[in-house]
Protein backbone atom coordinates (compact mmCIF):
# COMPACT_ATOMS: atom_id res chain seq x y z
CA UNK A 1 0.00 0.00 0.00
CA UNK A 2 1.67 3.13 -1.20
CA UNK A 3 0.70 6.74 -0.49
CA UNK A 4 -0.95 8.32 -3.51
CA UNK A 5 -1.20 11.98 -4.42
CA UNK A 6 -2.52 13.97 -1.48
CA UNK A 7 -1.26 11.46 1.06
CA UNK A 8 -4.32 9.23 1.13
CA UNK A 9 -3.29 5.61 1.23
CA UNK A 10 -4.22 3.53 -1.75
CA UNK A 11 -5.46 -0.01 -1.08
CA UNK A 12 -4.61 -1.08 -4.58
CA UNK A 13 -2.32 -4.08 -4.82
CA UNK A 14 -0.80 -5.70 -7.87
CA UNK A 15 -1.42 -9.30 -8.87
CA UNK A 16 1.95 -10.35 -7.47
CA UNK A 17 0.98 -8.96 -4.06
CA UNK A 18 -2.20 -11.05 -3.68
CA UNK A 19 -0.43 -14.06 -2.19
CA UNK A 20 1.58 -12.04 0.36
CA UNK A 21 -1.59 -10.09 1.26
CA UNK A 22 -3.54 -13.29 1.89
CA UNK A 23 -0.64 -14.62 3.98
CA UNK A 24 -0.58 -11.40 5.99
CA UNK A 25 -4.31 -11.63 6.83
CA UNK A 26 -4.72 -15.41 6.99
CA UNK A 27 -3.04 -18.36 8.63
CA UNK A 28 -3.46 -22.14 8.65
CA UNK A 29 -6.81 -22.98 10.20
CA UNK A 30 -8.31 -19.52 9.66
CA UNK A 31 -11.87 -18.87 8.55
CA UNK A 32 -12.43 -17.75 4.97
CA UNK A 33 -15.72 -16.42 3.60
CA UNK A 34 -16.49 -16.18 -0.12
CA UNK A 35 -18.88 -13.71 -1.77
CA UNK A 36 -21.09 -14.03 -4.81
CA UNK A 37 -23.39 -17.04 -5.16
CA UNK A 38 -23.18 -20.31 -7.08
CA UNK A 39 -22.04 -19.32 -10.60
CA UNK A 40 -22.12 -15.54 -10.25
CA UNK A 41 -19.76 -13.02 -8.73
CA UNK A 42 -17.46 -15.52 -7.01
CA UNK A 43 -13.90 -14.36 -6.24
CA UNK A 44 -12.40 -17.31 -8.10
CA UNK A 45 -9.09 -15.68 -9.08
CA UNK A 46 -8.53 -14.87 -5.39
CA UNK A 47 -9.44 -18.45 -4.50
CA UNK A 48 -6.80 -19.71 -6.94
CA UNK A 49 -4.28 -17.39 -5.26
CA UNK A 50 -5.40 -18.68 -1.87
CA UNK A 51 -4.69 -22.23 -3.01
CA UNK A 52 -1.25 -21.10 -4.24
CA UNK A 53 -0.35 -19.68 -0.82
CA UNK A 54 -0.52 -23.17 0.65
CA UNK A 55 -2.68 -22.01 3.58
CA UNK A 56 -4.50 -25.09 4.77
CA UNK A 57 -6.95 -26.50 7.32
CA UNK A 58 -9.24 -23.66 6.28
CA UNK A 59 -12.66 -23.24 7.84
CA UNK A 60 -14.82 -22.35 4.90
CA UNK A 61 -17.83 -20.03 4.90
CA UNK A 62 -19.72 -18.62 1.96
CA UNK A 63 -22.88 -16.89 0.96
CA UNK A 64 -25.67 -19.52 1.10
CA UNK A 65 -24.86 -21.06 -2.29
CA UNK A 66 -21.44 -22.24 -3.42
CA UNK A 67 -20.07 -24.62 -6.02
CA UNK A 68 -17.03 -24.62 -8.30
CA UNK A 69 -14.66 -22.58 -6.13
CA UNK A 70 -15.26 -24.45 -2.88
CA UNK A 71 -14.93 -27.72 -4.76
CA UNK A 72 -11.59 -26.49 -6.10
CA UNK A 73 -10.37 -25.57 -2.59
CA UNK A 74 -11.41 -28.99 -1.31
CA UNK A 75 -9.84 -30.75 -4.31
CA UNK A 76 -6.60 -28.92 -3.49
CA UNK A 77 -6.72 -30.30 0.06
CA UNK A 78 -6.88 -26.87 1.69
CA UNK A 79 -10.10 -27.30 3.68
CA UNK A 80 -10.71 -28.87 7.09
CA UNK A 81 -14.28 -27.79 7.84
CA UNK A 82 -17.15 -26.34 5.84
CA UNK A 83 -19.96 -24.15 7.10
CA UNK A 84 -21.78 -24.02 3.78
CA UNK A 85 -25.56 -24.12 3.30
CA UNK A 86 -25.92 -25.41 -0.30
CA UNK A 87 -22.90 -26.89 -2.09
CA UNK A 88 -23.83 -27.72 -5.64
CA UNK A 89 -23.11 -27.00 -9.28
CA UNK A 90 -26.92 -26.70 -9.50
CA UNK A 91 -27.25 -29.20 -12.34
CA UNK A 92 -25.04 -31.76 -10.54
CA UNK A 93 -23.27 -32.48 -7.25
CA UNK A 94 -19.87 -31.03 -6.34
CA UNK A 95 -17.63 -34.09 -6.79
CA UNK A 96 -14.72 -33.10 -4.54
CA UNK A 97 -16.96 -31.89 -1.70
CA UNK A 98 -19.03 -35.04 -1.89
CA UNK A 99 -16.00 -37.33 -2.05
CA UNK A 100 -14.15 -35.61 0.79
CA UNK A 101 -17.19 -35.84 3.09
CA UNK A 102 -17.93 -39.45 2.19
CA UNK A 103 -14.31 -40.44 2.82
CA UNK A 104 -14.34 -38.58 6.13
CA UNK A 105 -11.59 -36.16 5.09
CA UNK A 106 -13.46 -32.95 5.88
CA UNK A 107 -16.20 -32.04 8.32
CA UNK A 108 -19.19 -30.56 6.52
CA UNK A 109 -21.51 -29.04 9.09
CA UNK A 110 -25.28 -28.89 8.68
CA UNK A 111 -25.83 -25.19 8.11
CA UNK A 112 -28.56 -23.21 6.41
CA UNK A 113 -28.81 -19.72 5.00
CA UNK A 114 -30.15 -18.12 8.18
CA UNK A 115 -27.16 -19.54 10.10
CA UNK A 116 -24.65 -17.84 7.86
CA UNK A 117 -26.60 -14.67 7.17
CA UNK A 118 -27.60 -14.32 10.83
CA UNK A 119 -24.05 -14.92 12.03
CA UNK A 120 -22.70 -12.33 9.61
CA UNK A 121 -25.42 -9.87 10.66
CA UNK A 122 -24.50 -10.29 14.31
CA UNK A 123 -20.82 -9.72 13.52
CA UNK A 124 -21.60 -6.69 11.37
CA UNK A 125 -23.74 -5.24 14.14
CA UNK A 126 -21.29 -6.00 16.92
CA UNK A 127 -23.59 -8.26 18.94
CA UNK A 128 -22.73 -11.78 20.11
CA UNK A 129 -25.61 -13.58 18.40
CA UNK A 130 -28.59 -13.21 16.10
CA UNK A 131 -31.94 -14.68 17.17
CA UNK A 132 -33.64 -16.93 14.61
CA UNK A 133 -37.38 -17.61 14.84
CA UNK A 134 -38.08 -19.36 11.52
CA UNK A 135 -36.69 -22.80 12.33
CA UNK A 136 -38.66 -25.87 13.37
CA UNK A 137 -38.46 -29.60 12.91
CA UNK A 138 -35.27 -29.85 10.85
CA UNK A 139 -32.16 -31.91 11.58
CA UNK A 140 -30.23 -28.90 10.26
CA UNK A 141 -31.19 -27.14 13.47
CA UNK A 142 -30.46 -30.00 15.85
CA UNK A 143 -27.07 -30.91 14.29
CA UNK A 144 -25.95 -27.38 13.46
CA UNK A 145 -23.02 -26.47 15.76
CA UNK A 146 -23.91 -22.80 15.26
CA UNK A 147 -27.51 -23.08 16.48
CA UNK A 148 -28.64 -23.15 20.12
CA UNK A 149 -32.16 -22.86 21.50
CA UNK A 150 -32.61 -19.79 23.68
CA UNK A 151 -35.41 -18.26 25.73
CA UNK A 152 -36.71 -14.94 24.55
CA UNK A 153 -36.31 -12.24 27.21
CA UNK A 154 -39.59 -10.68 26.06
CA UNK A 155 -41.94 -13.58 25.42
CA UNK A 156 -42.22 -17.33 25.23
CA UNK A 157 -41.94 -18.00 21.50
CA UNK A 158 -39.39 -20.68 20.59
CA UNK A 159 -36.12 -19.10 19.48
CA UNK A 160 -32.63 -20.08 18.43
CA UNK A 161 -29.42 -18.13 18.47
CA UNK A 162 -26.57 -18.24 15.98
CA UNK A 163 -23.23 -16.82 17.09
CA UNK A 164 -21.56 -13.91 15.35
CA UNK A 165 -19.51 -15.07 12.37
CA UNK A 166 -16.47 -12.84 11.93
CA UNK A 167 -14.37 -14.44 9.19
CA UNK A 168 -10.62 -13.88 9.32
CA UNK A 169 -10.61 -13.38 5.61
CA UNK A 170 -13.43 -12.29 3.30
CA UNK A 171 -12.86 -12.58 -0.46
CA UNK A 172 -15.13 -10.64 -2.81
CA UNK A 173 -15.38 -9.89 -6.50
CA UNK A 174 -17.05 -6.82 -8.01
CA UNK A 175 -17.25 -5.45 -11.52
CA UNK A 176 -15.65 -2.13 -10.67
CA UNK A 177 -13.81 -0.49 -7.84
CA UNK A 178 -11.40 2.34 -7.11
CA UNK A 179 -7.99 2.35 -5.47
CA UNK A 180 -9.54 3.08 -2.07
CA UNK A 181 -11.51 -0.15 -2.12
CA UNK A 182 -14.90 1.32 -3.00
CA UNK A 183 -16.67 -1.48 -4.87
CA UNK A 184 -19.38 -1.09 -7.42
CA UNK A 185 -21.52 -4.03 -8.45
CA UNK A 186 -23.03 -3.48 -11.86
CA UNK A 187 -24.84 -6.81 -11.60
CA UNK A 188 -28.46 -7.00 -10.46
CA UNK A 189 -27.75 -9.60 -7.81
CA UNK A 190 -25.22 -8.69 -5.12
CA UNK A 191 -26.12 -11.42 -2.60
CA UNK A 192 -24.39 -11.11 0.79
CA UNK A 193 -21.25 -9.28 -0.35
CA UNK A 194 -21.89 -6.00 1.49
CA UNK A 195 -22.82 -7.87 4.67
CA UNK A 196 -19.66 -9.99 4.54
CA UNK A 197 -17.51 -6.92 4.05
CA UNK A 198 -18.96 -5.44 7.26
CA UNK A 199 -18.59 -8.70 9.18
CA UNK A 200 -15.08 -9.75 8.13
CA UNK A 201 -11.85 -8.97 9.90
CA UNK A 202 -9.95 -8.59 6.64
CA UNK A 203 -11.50 -8.02 3.25
CA UNK A 204 -9.72 -8.52 -0.07
CA UNK A 205 -11.61 -7.73 -3.28
CA UNK A 206 -10.90 -8.26 -6.94
CA UNK A 207 -12.50 -6.07 -9.59
CA UNK A 208 -12.74 -6.62 -13.32
CA UNK A 209 -11.97 -2.96 -13.89
CA UNK A 210 -10.34 -0.29 -11.80
CA UNK A 211 -12.12 3.08 -12.06
CA UNK A 212 -10.98 6.53 -10.88
CA UNK A 213 -12.23 7.78 -7.54
CA UNK A 214 -14.05 10.56 -9.46
CA UNK A 215 -16.28 7.93 -11.06
CA UNK A 216 -17.25 6.68 -7.59
CA UNK A 217 -17.93 10.25 -6.41
CA UNK A 218 -20.26 10.90 -9.34
CA UNK A 219 -22.54 8.05 -8.25
CA UNK A 220 -22.25 7.30 -4.52
CA UNK A 221 -25.47 5.28 -4.53
CA UNK A 222 -23.80 2.96 -6.99
CA UNK A 223 -21.19 2.00 -4.38
CA UNK A 224 -22.28 -1.40 -3.14
CA UNK A 225 -19.42 -1.90 -0.66
CA UNK A 226 -17.83 1.20 0.84
CA UNK A 227 -14.05 1.30 0.81
CA UNK A 228 -13.96 1.71 4.60
CA UNK A 229 -14.71 -2.02 4.84
CA UNK A 230 -12.10 -3.14 2.32
CA UNK A 231 -8.43 -3.76 3.11
CA UNK A 232 -7.05 -4.47 -0.33
CA UNK A 233 -8.32 -4.28 -3.89
CA UNK A 234 -6.78 -5.75 -7.02
CA UNK A 235 -7.73 -5.40 -10.65
CA UNK A 236 -8.08 -8.81 -12.28
CA UNK A 237 -9.73 -9.00 -15.69
CA UNK A 238 -12.10 -11.98 -15.70
CA UNK A 239 -11.43 -12.29 -11.97
CA UNK A 240 -14.65 -14.24 -11.40
CA UNK A 241 -14.08 -16.73 -14.23
CA UNK A 242 -15.47 -19.38 -14.61
CA UNK A 243 -18.34 -17.80 -12.69
CA UNK A 244 -20.17 -14.82 -14.15
CA UNK A 245 -19.55 -11.14 -13.62
CA UNK A 246 -22.57 -9.46 -15.15
CA UNK A 247 -22.80 -7.37 -17.22
CA UNK A 248 -19.18 -8.04 -18.24
CA UNK A 249 -19.20 -11.79 -18.85
CA UNK A 250 -21.46 -14.78 -18.30
CA UNK A 251 -20.67 -18.04 -16.54
CA UNK A 252 -18.43 -20.50 -18.37
CA UNK A 253 -20.69 -23.53 -18.02
CA UNK A 254 -18.62 -25.82 -20.24
CA UNK A 255 -15.43 -25.03 -18.28
CA UNK A 256 -17.21 -25.88 -15.02
CA UNK A 257 -18.66 -29.03 -16.59
CA UNK A 258 -15.22 -30.19 -17.70
CA UNK A 259 -13.86 -29.74 -14.19
CA UNK A 260 -16.84 -31.58 -12.72
CA UNK A 261 -16.45 -34.43 -15.20
CA UNK A 262 -12.81 -35.05 -14.35
CA UNK A 263 -13.26 -34.52 -10.60
CA UNK A 264 -16.16 -36.97 -10.69
CA UNK A 265 -14.11 -39.48 -12.68
CA UNK A 266 -11.38 -39.19 -10.05
CA UNK A 267 -13.86 -39.62 -7.22
CA UNK A 268 -15.29 -42.78 -8.76
CA UNK A 269 -11.83 -44.22 -9.48
CA UNK A 270 -10.46 -43.23 -6.07
CA UNK A 271 -7.73 -41.33 -7.91
CA UNK A 272 -6.28 -37.86 -7.36
CA UNK A 273 -4.36 -37.76 -10.65
CA UNK A 274 -7.17 -35.97 -12.49
CA UNK A 275 -7.54 -33.04 -10.10
CA UNK A 276 -3.78 -32.84 -9.54
CA UNK A 277 -3.26 -32.33 -13.27
CA UNK A 278 -6.12 -29.82 -13.36
CA UNK A 279 -4.73 -27.84 -10.44
CA UNK A 280 -1.29 -27.78 -12.06
CA UNK A 281 -2.72 -26.56 -15.34
CA UNK A 282 -5.14 -23.91 -14.10
CA UNK A 283 -4.17 -23.00 -10.52
CA UNK A 284 -0.56 -23.74 -9.59
CA UNK A 285 1.03 -23.50 -13.02
CA UNK A 286 -0.10 -20.14 -14.41
CA UNK A 287 2.10 -17.29 -13.15
CA UNK A 288 -0.69 -14.69 -13.28
CA UNK A 289 -4.14 -13.96 -14.66
CA UNK A 290 -2.76 -13.55 -18.18
CA UNK A 291 -1.12 -16.96 -18.01
CA UNK A 292 -4.42 -18.32 -16.73
CA UNK A 293 -6.30 -16.77 -19.62
CA UNK A 294 -3.75 -18.30 -21.98
CA UNK A 295 -4.37 -21.71 -20.42
CA UNK A 296 -8.06 -21.20 -21.19
CA UNK A 297 -7.29 -20.63 -24.84
CA UNK A 298 -6.71 -16.92 -24.69
CA UNK A 299 -9.00 -13.96 -24.65
CA UNK A 300 -10.66 -15.11 -27.85
CA UNK A 301 -12.03 -18.14 -26.03
CA UNK A 302 -13.81 -15.85 -23.56
CA UNK A 303 -15.47 -13.57 -26.09
CA UNK A 304 -18.65 -15.70 -26.23
CA UNK A 305 -19.08 -15.17 -22.48
CA UNK A 306 -18.93 -11.42 -23.02
CA UNK A 307 -21.42 -11.65 -25.86
CA UNK A 308 -23.85 -13.68 -23.74
CA UNK A 309 -23.62 -11.11 -20.92
CA UNK A 310 -24.24 -8.22 -23.31
CA UNK A 311 -27.26 -9.95 -24.81
CA UNK A 312 -28.91 -10.09 -21.38
Amino acid at each position, binding site marked *: MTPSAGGRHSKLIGAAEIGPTLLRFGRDGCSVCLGGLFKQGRPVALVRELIRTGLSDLRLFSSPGSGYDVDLLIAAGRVAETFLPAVTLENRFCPSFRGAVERGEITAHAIDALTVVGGLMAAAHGVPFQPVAAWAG*SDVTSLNPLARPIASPFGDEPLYAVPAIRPDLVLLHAQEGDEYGNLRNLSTMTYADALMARAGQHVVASVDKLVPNEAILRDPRGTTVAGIYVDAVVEIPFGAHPTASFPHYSMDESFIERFADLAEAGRRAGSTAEVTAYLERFVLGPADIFDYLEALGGYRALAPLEREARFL
Partner: protein
Amino acid sequence: MSERYSTGELLAVLLARDLRDGETGAAGAAALIPMAAIMLARAMHAPNIQIAGEMFVNPRPRQLWDSMLDDRALGTCEASETFTELFGHSHRGLDFFFHSGLQIDAHGNINLHAIGPWDRPTLRGPGAANISYGVRSRRFYITATSHTRRNFVERVDFVTVPGNLDGPDSRARAGLVREGPRYCLTPRCVFDFDPETLRMRLRSLHPGHTLEEVVAETGFRFAADPEPATTVPPSDDELRVLRTVVDPRGALAPGRTARH
Protein backbone atom coordinates in the same frame (compact mmCIF):
# COMPACT_ATOMS: atom_id res chain seq x y z
CA MET B 1 -47.72 -43.65 -22.96
CA SER B 2 -48.48 -40.25 -24.36
CA GLU B 3 -46.00 -38.43 -26.54
CA ARG B 4 -47.94 -35.18 -26.22
CA TYR B 5 -45.97 -33.76 -23.31
CA SER B 6 -42.92 -34.36 -21.17
CA THR B 7 -42.90 -35.14 -17.46
CA GLY B 8 -41.58 -31.64 -16.82
CA GLU B 9 -44.42 -30.08 -18.77
CA LEU B 10 -47.00 -32.22 -16.98
CA LEU B 11 -45.71 -31.31 -13.52
CA ALA B 12 -45.51 -27.61 -14.42
CA VAL B 13 -49.12 -27.64 -15.61
CA LEU B 14 -50.37 -29.48 -12.50
CA LEU B 15 -48.57 -27.06 -10.18
CA ALA B 16 -49.73 -24.00 -12.10
CA ARG B 17 -53.39 -24.99 -11.67
CA ASP B 18 -53.01 -24.84 -7.89
CA LEU B 19 -51.48 -21.34 -7.69
CA ARG B 20 -53.95 -18.55 -7.00
CA ASP B 21 -54.07 -15.00 -8.26
CA GLY B 22 -52.57 -12.49 -5.84
CA GLU B 23 -50.35 -14.97 -4.05
CA THR B 24 -46.64 -14.45 -3.39
CA GLY B 25 -44.13 -17.24 -3.77
CA ALA B 26 -40.75 -18.33 -5.05
CA ALA B 27 -39.43 -21.19 -7.11
CA GLY B 28 -36.81 -22.60 -4.75
CA ALA B 29 -33.49 -24.13 -5.69
CA ALA B 30 -34.43 -26.68 -8.36
CA ALA B 31 -36.22 -23.94 -10.20
CA LEU B 32 -36.98 -25.26 -13.66
CA ILE B 33 -40.39 -26.87 -13.12
CA PRO B 34 -41.59 -24.53 -10.33
CA MET B 35 -40.65 -21.42 -12.30
CA ALA B 36 -42.47 -22.77 -15.34
CA ALA B 37 -45.51 -23.36 -13.11
CA ILE B 38 -45.47 -19.82 -11.72
CA MET B 39 -45.10 -18.26 -15.15
CA LEU B 40 -47.77 -20.48 -16.62
CA ALA B 41 -50.18 -19.62 -13.80
CA ARG B 42 -49.49 -15.94 -14.43
CA ALA B 43 -50.17 -16.31 -18.12
CA MET B 44 -53.29 -18.47 -17.69
CA HIS B 45 -55.29 -17.37 -14.67
CA ALA B 46 -53.20 -15.56 -12.05
CA PRO B 47 -51.62 -12.39 -13.48
CA ASN B 48 -51.11 -10.94 -10.01
CA ILE B 49 -48.81 -13.63 -8.61
CA GLN B 50 -45.81 -11.92 -7.02
CA ILE B 51 -42.42 -13.60 -7.07
CA ALA B 52 -40.32 -12.61 -4.07
CA GLY B 53 -38.19 -14.04 -1.30
CA GLU B 54 -35.04 -14.93 -3.21
CA MET B 55 -33.33 -11.56 -3.42
CA PHE B 56 -35.29 -10.43 -6.46
CA VAL B 57 -38.84 -9.25 -6.94
CA ASN B 58 -40.90 -10.16 -9.99
CA PRO B 59 -38.19 -11.35 -12.36
CA ARG B 60 -38.83 -11.47 -16.10
CA PRO B 61 -36.89 -14.51 -17.26
CA ARG B 62 -36.58 -14.71 -21.02
CA GLN B 63 -36.30 -18.46 -20.78
CA LEU B 64 -36.24 -21.20 -18.18
CA TRP B 65 -33.03 -22.25 -16.44
CA ASP B 66 -32.11 -24.96 -13.93
CA SER B 67 -31.46 -22.28 -11.33
CA MET B 68 -33.09 -18.89 -10.84
CA LEU B 69 -30.45 -17.28 -8.67
CA ASP B 70 -28.35 -15.27 -11.10
CA ASP B 71 -28.68 -12.29 -13.44
CA ARG B 72 -28.84 -14.47 -16.55
CA ALA B 73 -31.76 -16.49 -15.24
CA LEU B 74 -33.84 -13.65 -13.88
CA GLY B 75 -33.54 -11.49 -17.00
CA THR B 76 -34.63 -8.34 -15.30
CA CYS B 77 -36.73 -7.75 -12.21
CA GLU B 78 -38.62 -4.99 -10.43
CA ALA B 79 -36.26 -4.86 -7.44
CA SER B 80 -33.17 -6.63 -6.24
CA GLU B 81 -32.59 -7.32 -2.57
CA THR B 82 -29.69 -8.78 -0.61
CA PHE B 83 -29.47 -11.68 1.80
CA THR B 84 -30.17 -9.46 4.81
CA GLU B 85 -33.81 -9.45 3.66
CA LEU B 86 -33.91 -13.22 4.02
CA PHE B 87 -34.85 -12.86 7.68
CA GLY B 88 -37.85 -10.69 6.85
CA HIS B 89 -39.10 -13.05 4.16
CA SER B 90 -38.56 -16.04 6.45
CA HIS B 91 -40.51 -14.28 9.18
CA ARG B 92 -43.43 -13.33 6.97
CA GLY B 93 -43.36 -16.54 4.98
CA LEU B 94 -44.51 -16.94 1.40
CA ASP B 95 -47.84 -18.24 0.18
CA PHE B 96 -46.19 -21.06 -1.71
CA PHE B 97 -42.78 -22.65 -2.14
CA PHE B 98 -41.32 -25.78 -3.74
CA HIS B 99 -38.91 -28.48 -2.66
CA SER B 100 -37.38 -31.53 -4.22
CA GLY B 101 -35.18 -34.07 -2.45
CA LEU B 102 -32.63 -36.86 -2.61
CA GLN B 103 -35.10 -38.76 -0.47
CA ILE B 104 -38.79 -38.04 0.11
CA ASP B 105 -40.66 -39.97 2.75
CA ALA B 106 -44.17 -41.16 3.55
CA HIS B 107 -44.87 -38.03 5.62
CA GLY B 108 -43.45 -35.64 3.03
CA ASN B 109 -40.16 -34.97 4.79
CA ILE B 110 -37.31 -33.90 2.52
CA ASN B 111 -33.69 -35.02 2.66
CA LEU B 112 -31.16 -33.00 0.69
CA HIS B 113 -28.20 -33.67 2.96
CA ALA B 114 -27.02 -37.22 3.37
CA ILE B 115 -27.93 -40.83 2.72
CA GLY B 116 -26.57 -43.18 5.36
CA PRO B 117 -25.09 -42.15 8.71
CA TRP B 118 -24.66 -38.40 9.09
CA ASP B 119 -21.00 -38.56 10.14
CA ARG B 120 -20.01 -40.95 7.34
CA PRO B 121 -22.67 -40.81 4.63
CA THR B 122 -22.70 -43.08 1.61
CA LEU B 123 -23.96 -40.09 -0.38
CA ARG B 124 -23.45 -36.49 0.68
CA GLY B 125 -25.90 -34.28 -1.14
CA PRO B 126 -25.88 -30.54 -1.65
CA GLY B 127 -27.74 -29.55 1.51
CA ALA B 128 -30.14 -26.63 1.26
CA ALA B 129 -29.75 -22.89 1.26
CA ASN B 130 -32.92 -21.89 3.05
CA ILE B 131 -34.89 -24.36 5.14
CA SER B 132 -37.20 -21.76 6.69
CA TYR B 133 -39.60 -21.32 3.76
CA GLY B 134 -40.74 -24.92 4.13
CA VAL B 135 -41.59 -24.10 7.75
CA ARG B 136 -43.03 -20.63 7.40
CA SER B 137 -44.67 -20.61 3.97
CA ARG B 138 -48.39 -21.21 3.93
CA ARG B 139 -47.86 -24.37 1.93
CA PHE B 140 -45.25 -26.03 -0.22
CA TYR B 141 -45.17 -28.52 -3.04
CA ILE B 142 -42.85 -31.46 -3.43
CA THR B 143 -41.73 -32.17 -6.96
CA ALA B 144 -39.80 -35.29 -7.88
CA THR B 145 -38.35 -35.98 -11.31
CA SER B 146 -37.89 -39.65 -10.52
CA HIS B 147 -40.06 -42.02 -8.48
CA THR B 148 -38.52 -45.27 -7.30
CA ARG B 149 -38.05 -47.18 -4.05
CA ARG B 150 -34.64 -45.55 -3.80
CA ASN B 151 -35.94 -41.99 -3.37
CA PHE B 152 -39.47 -42.65 -2.06
CA VAL B 153 -38.70 -44.13 1.36
CA GLU B 154 -40.61 -44.76 4.59
CA ARG B 155 -38.43 -42.34 6.58
CA VAL B 156 -35.70 -40.04 5.32
CA ASP B 157 -32.19 -40.56 6.72
CA PHE B 158 -31.94 -36.83 7.41
CA VAL B 159 -34.70 -34.23 7.72
CA THR B 160 -33.49 -31.21 5.77
CA VAL B 161 -36.95 -29.72 5.39
CA PRO B 162 -39.70 -31.07 7.63
CA GLY B 163 -42.87 -32.12 5.92
CA ASN B 164 -45.23 -33.73 8.42
CA LEU B 165 -42.41 -35.33 10.51
CA ASP B 166 -44.06 -38.46 11.99
CA GLY B 167 -47.62 -37.17 11.87
CA PRO B 168 -49.91 -34.60 13.51
CA ASP B 169 -48.54 -34.88 17.07
CA SER B 170 -44.91 -34.56 16.05
CA ARG B 171 -45.75 -31.59 13.85
CA ALA B 172 -47.40 -29.80 16.74
CA ARG B 173 -44.55 -30.64 19.13
CA ALA B 174 -42.01 -29.24 16.67
CA GLY B 175 -43.98 -26.02 16.30
CA LEU B 176 -44.96 -26.56 12.67
CA VAL B 177 -48.16 -24.57 12.33
CA ARG B 178 -48.53 -24.09 8.56
CA GLU B 179 -50.14 -26.45 6.07
CA GLY B 180 -46.78 -27.97 5.11
CA PRO B 181 -46.60 -30.09 1.97
CA ARG B 182 -49.85 -30.01 -0.02
CA TYR B 183 -49.06 -32.29 -2.92
CA CYS B 184 -46.16 -34.45 -3.98
CA LEU B 185 -45.94 -34.63 -7.75
CA THR B 186 -43.94 -37.40 -9.38
CA PRO B 187 -43.52 -38.70 -12.94
CA ARG B 188 -46.08 -41.41 -12.06
CA CYS B 189 -48.76 -39.82 -9.92
CA VAL B 190 -49.93 -37.13 -7.53
CA PHE B 191 -49.95 -37.78 -3.79
CA ASP B 192 -51.74 -35.68 -1.22
CA PHE B 193 -51.80 -36.21 2.55
CA ASP B 194 -54.35 -38.05 4.67
CA PRO B 195 -55.62 -35.44 7.17
CA GLU B 196 -55.70 -38.02 10.00
CA THR B 197 -52.21 -39.45 9.64
CA LEU B 198 -50.53 -36.84 7.41
CA ARG B 199 -49.10 -39.70 5.37
CA MET B 200 -49.09 -39.62 1.59
CA ARG B 201 -52.08 -41.10 -0.17
CA LEU B 202 -52.66 -41.50 -3.86
CA ARG B 203 -54.65 -38.63 -5.31
CA SER B 204 -54.42 -39.48 -9.00
CA LEU B 205 -52.46 -41.59 -11.44
CA HIS B 206 -51.02 -39.89 -14.49
CA PRO B 207 -52.41 -41.26 -17.77
CA GLY B 208 -50.61 -44.45 -18.73
CA HIS B 209 -49.59 -45.39 -15.19
CA THR B 210 -51.08 -48.06 -12.93
CA LEU B 211 -51.64 -48.51 -9.22
CA GLU B 212 -49.59 -51.72 -9.26
CA GLU B 213 -46.67 -49.87 -10.77
CA VAL B 214 -46.80 -47.06 -8.18
CA VAL B 215 -47.04 -49.59 -5.33
CA ALA B 216 -44.05 -51.46 -6.75
CA GLU B 217 -41.97 -48.30 -7.16
CA THR B 218 -42.77 -46.69 -3.80
CA GLY B 219 -40.83 -47.63 -0.68
CA PHE B 220 -43.73 -47.07 1.72
CA ARG B 221 -47.36 -48.09 2.08
CA PHE B 222 -49.88 -45.48 1.06
CA ALA B 223 -53.66 -45.30 1.01
CA ALA B 224 -55.27 -45.51 -2.40
CA ASP B 225 -58.69 -45.92 -3.88
CA PRO B 226 -58.82 -49.34 -5.60
CA GLU B 227 -59.83 -47.48 -8.75
CA PRO B 228 -57.78 -44.31 -8.51
CA ALA B 229 -58.65 -41.10 -10.32
CA THR B 230 -56.67 -40.21 -13.43
CA THR B 231 -54.70 -36.98 -13.48
CA VAL B 232 -56.33 -34.47 -15.82
CA PRO B 233 -53.66 -34.16 -18.50
CA PRO B 234 -52.46 -30.81 -19.87
CA SER B 235 -54.98 -29.21 -22.21
CA ASP B 236 -54.00 -28.03 -25.65
CA ASP B 237 -54.31 -24.48 -24.38
CA GLU B 238 -52.04 -25.11 -21.39
CA LEU B 239 -49.40 -26.73 -23.60
CA ARG B 240 -49.61 -23.94 -26.17
CA VAL B 241 -49.07 -21.19 -23.58
CA LEU B 242 -46.36 -23.21 -21.83
CA ARG B 243 -44.44 -23.72 -25.07
CA THR B 244 -44.92 -20.34 -26.67
CA VAL B 245 -44.92 -17.93 -23.71
CA VAL B 246 -43.16 -19.66 -20.82
CA ASP B 247 -40.68 -22.07 -22.34
CA PRO B 248 -39.99 -21.12 -25.95
CA ARG B 249 -36.48 -22.64 -25.76
CA GLY B 250 -37.98 -26.01 -24.83
CA ALA B 251 -36.14 -26.57 -21.55
CA LEU B 252 -39.06 -28.73 -20.39
CA ALA B 253 -39.81 -30.19 -23.78
CA PRO B 254 -39.95 -33.90 -24.58
CA GLY B 255 -36.42 -35.21 -24.76
CA ARG B 256 -35.09 -32.62 -22.31
CA THR B 257 -36.96 -34.02 -19.33
CA ALA B 258 -38.09 -37.63 -19.51
CA ARG B 259 -40.80 -38.31 -22.03
CA HIS B 260 -44.06 -39.13 -20.37
